[in-house]
């Protein structure tokens, strides 16, 4: 067993506490499932070498490798290509005729009880939470989660984290806590916005005084170090560009107001929602600001203004054209059990497929739920693409990722097989006959063509028959 640092140990105890409470509340039935999944997870001991062989590998960052092999060692991808020599005693998983791609990355989500009644996310994680097993069944292997959000009075605060759905394993679950500063401002919340700006200036002037003092010290001059104003830690991190700020900005006004802050203070920001981003895409691109968006988001156009407004299914396509980096999340970024299908993280690729119907190319749409999302949440060094050295978070699909009938068959997290459709109860009873592309009534989606964009030749603004 790994030796834990004091901090980690504390975290672990906290999580176990949370875990115990939740487990008690769940039925024994779910426990049975948990055990089944645990067995699947532990079947592969550490040190064992696994190969996923024969599938079409969508690396995301370097094209598609037809009938390729991925080698997994110590939870990482050790080799990838068409001609990979397998060491002795390699456990081989046949993926012939399947699509092999990186586990999906959700740039905003809720999972595993994260943030539930704890100040720290690490203390709230429950690796047995039902949503963890649903994430595995959905192929989502990295998630950005919010803990506490800033209160109504504060512009900055709370916590967030990047986590993985390592069912039954608390150790691998937390990738990093606090990867961004949660901002709670918008143009309409002028008081909070003003407070935020004032505090930023205060922090900025402190940093300036500190720099002056340090310069003076270097020149052996006497002087007093400046006193750090209280409650400015987060602001200092922002000003030093150590962390990006995540804030919700829906309308063009809100987005432009956020960009003003970037211009004045040079902080990094990530815009969420950004439903009118398509109307100011060039402005966003100029500042190198990233966006977390939902293609199907709806907002009525504002009839009182003459410029374009409201939502557009073309939002993602227009952002791409302008050169803005973006991640796609579904309309409800959680694992929903209430019967509405196709609108939550259980079908993340469906949301990306809607962006494709709005004119986005398939490659960028895939990036928006893998590598781009990983970059935006600061986890691209470990996840988001199939590359040697990265975490072996891999999913095996039975078809094109954007086909409505495609299911995740296998999910690996940190090199461990954590979900097998056949062995899980969730979807094992659902089988689609034959090749999906053969169906008369199916879509006829061809195999992956990175440049395919069925809507590229036109837009989606209603046609006026009277013109």
């Amino acid at each position, binding site marked *: 067993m790994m030796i834990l640092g004091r901090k980690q140990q504390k975290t672990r105890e906290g999580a176990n506490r949370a875990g115990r409470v939740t487990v008690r509340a769940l039925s024994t039935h779910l426990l049975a499932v948990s055990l089944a999944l645990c067995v699947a997870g532990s079947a592969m001991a550490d040190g064992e070498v696994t190969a996923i062989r024969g599938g079409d590998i969508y690396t995301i960052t370097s094209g598609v490798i037809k009938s390729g092999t991925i080698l997994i060692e110590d939870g990482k991808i050790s080799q990838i290509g068409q001609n990979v020599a397998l060491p002795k005693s390699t456990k081989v998983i046949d993926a012939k005729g399947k699509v092999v791609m990186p586990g999906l990355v959700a740039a905003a989500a809720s999972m595993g009880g994260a943030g539930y009644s704890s100040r720290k996310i690490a203390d709230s994680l429950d690796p047995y939470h039902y949503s963890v097993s649903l994430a595995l069944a959905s192929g989502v292997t990295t998630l950005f989660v919010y803990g506490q959000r800033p209160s109504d009075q504060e512009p900055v605060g709370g916590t967030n984290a990047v986590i993985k759905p390592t069912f039954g394993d608390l150790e691998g679950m937390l990738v990093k806590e606090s990867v961004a500063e949660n901002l709670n401002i918008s143009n309409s919340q002028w008081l909070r916005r003003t407070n935020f700006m004032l505090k930023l200036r205060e922090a900025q002037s402190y940093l300036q005084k500190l720099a002056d003092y340090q310069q003076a010290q270097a020149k052996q001059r006497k002087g007093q170090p400046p006193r750090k104003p209280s409650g400015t830690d987060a602001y200092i991190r922002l000003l030093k560009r150590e962390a990006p700020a995540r804030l919700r900005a829906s309308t063009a006004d809100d987005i432009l107001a956020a960009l003003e802050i970037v211009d004045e203070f040079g902080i990094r920001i990530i815009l969420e929602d950004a439903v009118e981003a398509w109307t100011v895409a060039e402005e966003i691109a100029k500042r190198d600001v990233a966006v977390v968006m939902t293609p199907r988001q709806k907002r009525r156009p504002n009839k009182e203004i003459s410029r374009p407004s409201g939502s557009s299914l073309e939002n993602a396509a227009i952002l791409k054209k302008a050169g803005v980096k973006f991640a796609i999340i579904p309309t409800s970024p959680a694992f929903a059990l209430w*019967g509405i299908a196709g*609108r939550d993280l259980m079908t993340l690729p469906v949301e990306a497929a809607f962006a494709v119907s709005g004119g986005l190319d398939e490659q960028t749409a895939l990036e928006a739920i893998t590598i781009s999302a990983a970059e935006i949440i600061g986890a691209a060094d470990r996840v988001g693409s199939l590359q040697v050295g990265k975490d072996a978070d891999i999913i095996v699909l039975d078809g094109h990722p954007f086909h409505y009938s495609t299911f995740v068959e296998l999910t690996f997290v940190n090199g461990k097989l954590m979900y097998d459709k056949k062995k899980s109860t969730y979807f094992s009873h659902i089988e689609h006959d034959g090749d999906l592309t053969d169906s008369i009534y199916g879509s006829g989606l061809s195999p992956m063509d990175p440049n395919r964009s*069925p*809507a590229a030749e036109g837009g989606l603004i*209603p*046609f006026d028959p009277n013109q």
Partner: protein
Amino acid sequence: MKHICLGISIVVLCCILDSGAAEEQKDGKKYAVRAGKILTMARAEEPEAGRRVVNHGLILISDGKIEALGPATEIQVPDSYALIDAADRWAMPGIVEAHTHIGTEGGFNDMVVPLNPELRMADCVNPEDIAVEKAVTGGVTTVNTMQGSGTNLGGFTVIIKMDPSRPEKMILREFGAMKMTQAFNPERRGGDLGLTRMGMSWMIRYVLREGKEYTEAWQAYEDGQREDKPEYKPELEKMRKAFEGKIPTIVHTYTGWGVMQTIRTFYDENNLKVIPTHTAGGGYLVGNEAAKRDDVHINIGPRVLDFSWTEEYDNRFHGMGSEYYARGVTNLSINTDSVGWSHFIAPQEELAAQAAMSARLGLDDQAAIEAITIRAAQALGIDDRVGSLEVGKDADIVIKQGSLLDVATPVDLVLVNGRVVYQRRSLNLVAEPEKPTTEEE
């Protein structure tokens, strides 16, 4: 100066009148649609072939109706027809929605008394609702829009076409269906009788008995079996349409016992053509009972899957559509239950995605498309006009680069009543016919 103004206004007036005439002419515009694949959703000649699919087909449209449909090699295109070139695309029937709330203003429920047989949705059709404009972008051309489920009898729905440019022609049928509510929603409302399921059931049976007796009395009088004229009751008059079999009764209901109660109350006891709608929470468990009866038309949505991890359940995600099919129900349609225009549940334009998600969860692809076209039309009793592409039916056609189920390809062009009501920006699939030079404009 005054004279000039008058002159100008007369010219303007003439222009307006002129464009009005042109508009009328447009109504009669004739189109020839050339399509790579036509899913007619009509029965094939050989029953075992299922639905008729025509590859490299042609559809002729005149006076808003389908004039001819078949392989392109068998149909001549007359000169005066504008060509819609969809040779590398699919042509499919306009989507039919059996349960929605869009395109209305001031509707929903009155919430004063729990039984409102006097109310009609046709009084509040609003062609300017943004959801109508958006519906066609998803290929939806006909909807049954209705009251909410706040009272046991909400009133009468209206069936409208998604061509808001001509509000006076939007209504396809003024009395769409009788809207009733049997489970959950009305029970939530605080109040007097009807707060419990027992009370609610009494209300439903009470009003159905009133309507039935009223209908029978008038039928007897009109057939000459009774001398005295029954008293005319405007609030019950509309219920005659349901009891005479002219319109269906659409019933908000949930769970297995709820659907069973709906089938018993409406079909078995009152011989009404019934559409149990929603039916989530295990309604499919009584699917075999629904399958036994001819005029029970199941309508699922906005929930299309059932999941529960309780011990008595099996920890599986059940596609409601496929579970109904497994129990012999083929009279199955899918809805969005769309309210206004929002992303939270299912906006009207995403009805096809609702079908795609049902297909994902195990419903056959063909059945999924039937469920948003011909089956919905049959449930509403409007399959003589919409729901499939057949000669004589309304020319409501959706053109896109893939199946209706493919969420990654957008709808390219939509015709409603033979008029192009939507075409994706910068696409131009319509080629005007070359006019003979001798003809005067």
